[in-house]
């Protein structure tokens, strides 16, 4: 791993004296990502389409090359299984409305967990309500998924199990093997919300073998406005598009017989964002420099120190284990009151329910203070954070 001081230079945002501890909301963007997006607009510009000009061909090629790069990164053999979407939320809703809706029967159930982000929770709740289907919500135990309940809840009637690969509150990784095994056993499909996991673990699709997996570019050093949907080929081919329009049509006959292209194009209607796609492709060069395990160990070191200090401090509830995300509460202080003190030290972190309100259903607290760390953070920044926490305690307690 490069020296921290070198790494920090790659991220212009923190060179303004900001302490960025909100990587789980969106990761910092390295210069190469920012610059390549501009480069696209300056030197390539044109819309992607299946036109006949060479410029058009070249930009289309950029998109397809990126698709291939992503497939390789995730060890997906067939790149047509990589669909470009808007973000994780979009990807999940596509599966809910484009596949699950079509395949559900009245005695099906859907399994989700209390640990989900709203984006992998609300779509399922609403679909189940609309179709009058049972939605089974696996409860938590000690802020973690209760795996024995999970195994109990997933049964022969489970059409799909929707589960996060890593909680955006606790940062704890899901034991995906247990879940996928159970799903295989009873024939449930599985969709993995890898929005958080993607930046912390090298995902091997062939090994993990999920039916669907989603993530957002913006949480993997990439630009906003770009999401990924991976799916098994036969499932993607079965999917009904949730958006109809340009680019997906192969040809029409008699005005109303519309013939569609094959996947991935059939599921990517409307003008895509080739600038974002090009920019995202540069991420895969960037992360070559950062051995993901080494980076994780570095971050784990920082958070081990932080958690140790928080416990030493006292009056603090910690919901996390050492890892990239550390959520906690200072007893007696509302997270939003604390946030004022972080602001004054130019520390960016997140407070509140973090779009994962089910987590708080059985807790007294309705929110947390979340510190989420990235490769750019260092021990001095943790110390500044700890000073802020001391001040908060001093003021409020």
């Amino acid at each position, binding site marked *: 791993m490069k020296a921290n001081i070198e790494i920090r230079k790659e991220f212009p945002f923190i060179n303004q004296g900001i302490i960025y501890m909100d990587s789980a909301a969106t990761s910092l963007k390295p210069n190469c990502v920012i610059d390549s997006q501009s480069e696209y607009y300056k030197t390539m510009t044109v819309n992607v389409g299946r036109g006949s000009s060479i410029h058009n061909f070249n930009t289309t090629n950029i998109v397809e090359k990126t698709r291939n790069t992503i497939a390789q990164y995730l060890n997906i053999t067939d790149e047509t299984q990589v669909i470009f979407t808007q973000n994780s939320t979009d990807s999940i809703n596509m599966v809910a409305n484009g596949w699950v809706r079509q395949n559900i029967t009245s005695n099906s159930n859907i399994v989700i967990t209390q640990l989900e982000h709203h984006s992998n929770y609300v779509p399922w709740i609403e679909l189940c309500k609309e179709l009058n289907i049972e939605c089974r919500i696996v409860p938590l135990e000690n802020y973690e998924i209760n795996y024995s309940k999970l195994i109990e809840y997933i049964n022969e009637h489970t059409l799909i199990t929707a589960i996060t690969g890593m909680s955006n509150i606790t940062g704890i990784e899901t034991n995906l093997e247990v879940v996928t095994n159970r799903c295989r056993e009873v024939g449930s499909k599985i969709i993995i919300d890898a929005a958080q996991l993607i930046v912390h673990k090298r995902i091997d699709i062939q090994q993990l073998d999920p039916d669907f997996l989603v993530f957002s570019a913006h949480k993997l050093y990439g630009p906003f406005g770009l999401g990924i949907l991976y799916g098994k080929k036969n499932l993607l081919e079965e999917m009904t598009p949730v958006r109809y329009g340009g680019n997906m049509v192969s040809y029409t006959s008699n005005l109303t017989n519309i013939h569609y292209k094959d996947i991935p194009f059939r599921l990517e209607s409307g003008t895509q964002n080739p600038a974002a796609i090009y920019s995202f492709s540069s991420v895969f060069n960037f992360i070559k420099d950062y051995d993901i395990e080494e980076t994780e160990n570095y971050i784990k070191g920082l958070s081990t120190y932080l958690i140790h200090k928080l416990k030493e401090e006292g009056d603090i509830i910690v919901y996390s284990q050492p890892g990239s995300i550390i959520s906690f509460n200072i007893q007696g202080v*509302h997270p*939003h009151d604390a946030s*004022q*003190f972080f*602001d004054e030290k130019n520390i960016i972190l997140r407070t*509140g329910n973090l779009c994962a309100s089910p987590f708080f259903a059985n807790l007294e607290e*309705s*929110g947390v203070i979340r510190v989420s760390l990235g490769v750019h953070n260092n021990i001095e920044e943790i110390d500044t954070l700890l000073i802020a926490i001391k001040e908060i305690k001093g003021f409020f307690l």
Partner: protein
Amino acid sequence: MSLYKETLMKHFRNPEHKFELENFSKKQDGVNPSCGDNITLYTKINNSIIEDISYTGNGCAISMASADIMCEVLKNRDNGVNISLDFTSMLNGEDINFTNELEVLNVFKEMQNYPARKSCALLPWKTLTTLLNS
């Protein structure tokens, strides 16, 4: 922390109106969608005069103190809606100065400089407006 004035902290720490009113005539829930803070207002209203008012709820110091102070100044008044309008205007940067019994509301003037927290201070007042208009 200039935001957390002493008066404000006093109301947060030792609230005087944070309980469920007995025999209330009207009740109203309010939520701040930006953070989940919630409040329930209880009022006894007679001939448009707020004879009694209290609240319960869960939220940050700003929203809870704002609720407590609101209850304090509104008791035995009939012009809650107008005060609410003035209070909102003050937070939005208008040069408004409360006087007499309402003077305490001026502690929230500082919120002009903390736009991210305005909605906290406004939560009880918004809930009040809904209650009075319903």
